């Protein structure tokens, strides 16, 4: 039976159900239990924003607090995944991958290919992404393009609670390394989530809104900005189709092509910086594969080529808005 659940609770439920189902699933990270070795309560935090709260009481020592040593514990999760465990390691903020990126892109991503197909690396690395939390330049980035660039990694970025649960369960069961990106400004967002366990497959985009005039491609928080823009444009009689990519590697380009063949217009929205972004990648691929369908030049709506600023006044300008998307759609409609 489905209930209304926040994305945060949906992620917690996915971890809970997978740990109950499979004794080789362990969860590790900084403060994911919280309070280890401290005089106060066990499970003091349950993660810095409380996503893993309550799991320690149910699964005990399979939740492991780590020291502030991203290289060591992300590497240990990767190593353990080649030795019979199915670790879910929380990197807290994806921005911190700078500290341990070698383990992710030179080790986990390479094992299968570099060892001639003989290695499996079923590790899931959960991390918060995205701006809007007034957390400034080192806790707010949308670094999805960097990990998407690396062959061997899978990259997931859900836009809602239903997808978050199903995609996380798929990530844990998947035998390749997965970077699971959780937008911190979507943790409180609620949608219907079935109680039972289910998976959402990788590489299948979700058409969250149908429309005949323009295709808006987005993922994560930007799906919601795109929906706001589509609502506004619908009042003017412009019908937008929204493609929620859900996973960036693998990526469902076929659904984008199919949509653009119907609408003739493409707007790619990405909270990442513009150069070598997901938006740039989708635009390039689409231009190559469906150029003849395009009635107007594709538009990219991204953050500017700057770090994420702190001041709320500046950060609000940094994040792509519904107005930016409306303007971009209008550009494609201009005669």
């Amino acid at each position, binding site marked *: 039976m489905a209930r209304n659940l926040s994305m945060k609770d949906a992620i917690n439920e996915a971890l809970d159900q997978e740990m109950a189902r499979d004794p*080789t699933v*362990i969860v590790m990270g900084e403060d994911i239990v919280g309070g280890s070795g401290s005089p106060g309560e066990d499970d003091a935090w349950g993660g810095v924003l409380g996503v893993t709260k309550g799991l320690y009481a149910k699964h005990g020592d*399979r939740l*492991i607090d*780590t*020291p502030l*040593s991203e*290289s*060591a*514990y*992300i*590497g*240990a*999760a*990767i*190593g*353990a*995944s*080649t*030795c*019979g*465990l199915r*670790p879910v390691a929380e990197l807290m903020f994806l921005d911190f991958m700078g500290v341990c990126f*070698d*383990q992710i892109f*030179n*080790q986990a991503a*390479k*094992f*299968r*290919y*570099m*060892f*001639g*197909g*003989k*290695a*499996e690396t079923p590790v899931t690395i959960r991390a918060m992404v995205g701006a809007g939390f007034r957390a400034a330049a080192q806790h707010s980035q949308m670094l999805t393009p960097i990990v998407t660039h690396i*062959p*061997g990694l*899978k990259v997931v970025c859900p836009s809602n609670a239903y997808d978050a649960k199903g995609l996380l369960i798929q990530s844990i069961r*998947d*035998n*390749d390394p997965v970077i699971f990106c959780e937008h911190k400004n979507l943790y409180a967002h609620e949608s219907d989530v079935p109680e039972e366990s289910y998976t959402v497959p990788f*590489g299948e985009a979700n058409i969250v809104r149908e429309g005949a005039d323009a295709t808006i491609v987005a993922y994560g928080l930007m799906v919601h900005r795109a929906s706001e823009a589509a609502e506004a444009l619908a009042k003017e009689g412009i019908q937008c189709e929204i493609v929620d990519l859900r996973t960036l590697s*693998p990526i469902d380009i076929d659904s984008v092509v199919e949509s653009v063949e119907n609408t003739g217009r493409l707007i790619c929205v990405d909270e990442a910086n513009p150069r070598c972004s997901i938006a740039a990648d989708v635009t390039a691929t689409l231009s190559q594969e469906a150029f003849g369908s395009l009635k107007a030049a594709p538009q990219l709506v991204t953050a500017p080529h700057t770090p994420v600023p702190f001041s709320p006044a500046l950060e609000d300008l940094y994040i792509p808005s519904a107005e930016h998307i409306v303007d971009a759609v209008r550009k494609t409609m201009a005669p």
Partner: protein
Amino acid sequence: MNDNVFPLGNEDLLEAYRTMKTIREFEERLHVDFGRGEIPGFVHLYAGEEAAATGIMMHLNDQDRIASTHRGHGHCIAKGVDINAMMAEIYGKVTGACRGKGGSMHIADLSKGMMGANGILGAGSPLACGAALAAKTLGHGGIGMSFTGDGASNQGTFLESLNLAAIWNLPMVFVVENNGYAESTSVDYATAVDSYADRAAGFGVPGVIVDGTDFFAVYEAAGEIIRRAREGGGPSLMECKMVRFFGHFEGDAQTYRGAGENEHNRANRDCLKLFRARVTEADVIDGGDLDAIDSEVLAAIEQAVEQAVAAPLPGAADLTTDVYVRY
């Protein structure tokens, strides 16, 4: 022959010699073949260091996982990886241990507990901690072991891993192979303490130093700390002081070495010569038995090279396979 005074039986002594000799001849042959231009890429040879890999690995089984270094051939052979598959891999052939996609720096055989040679210095320590964590969680009695050179033992990953293994009381052994040079840079310049074993105390774990050219010293010290790890006593650090007979990589002119250094090492610090002298002078092993192993090893290496040379190269279809399990 006298009674055996060593901590290993005669068969094990012969096996230890065979392993060390196999590593030596494997590397000597690569040195020659690389010089002839027959081997692509970077090759880092383990010759001179055989007693360490062999003396340690004789205590391990396939459940025990090791994370190796760029200088990994010796670890592979001592851990039981097939030399024919290794040679074919180094020649870039599709019959290689990694189907020609890894090369010298990335040979792995997980079925033997060999998690991979590694082109990134210090990267293996966290991975081996993961193996130790898996062993502890699954309760199968195995251990994790990482090898780092004197150079990579200055990496943060190594130091972070010592702390991680210590606080989690992991069944883990950190082996520092100190051959005196990080590439061309002397350990005296690059490392602030006299011994890496001294660092162990800073992480609350035992540290030991052994003469890495002395098989028996390595064997005994390794046995103790591996037993400790297996019995739940937690991690240890073992520093092997050793010599590297060749350069950092093949093609290294070794202009950083002192005059006569290589000749001195070959004459006085050759772990194979030292082993032979010990077991024959004690009159426990007949020199003729060792000579017979020498011949067998040379023949096996020759066969491995012949097979590698004759083996097919990977084809265009292989380029894009095995990036993912499923995509």
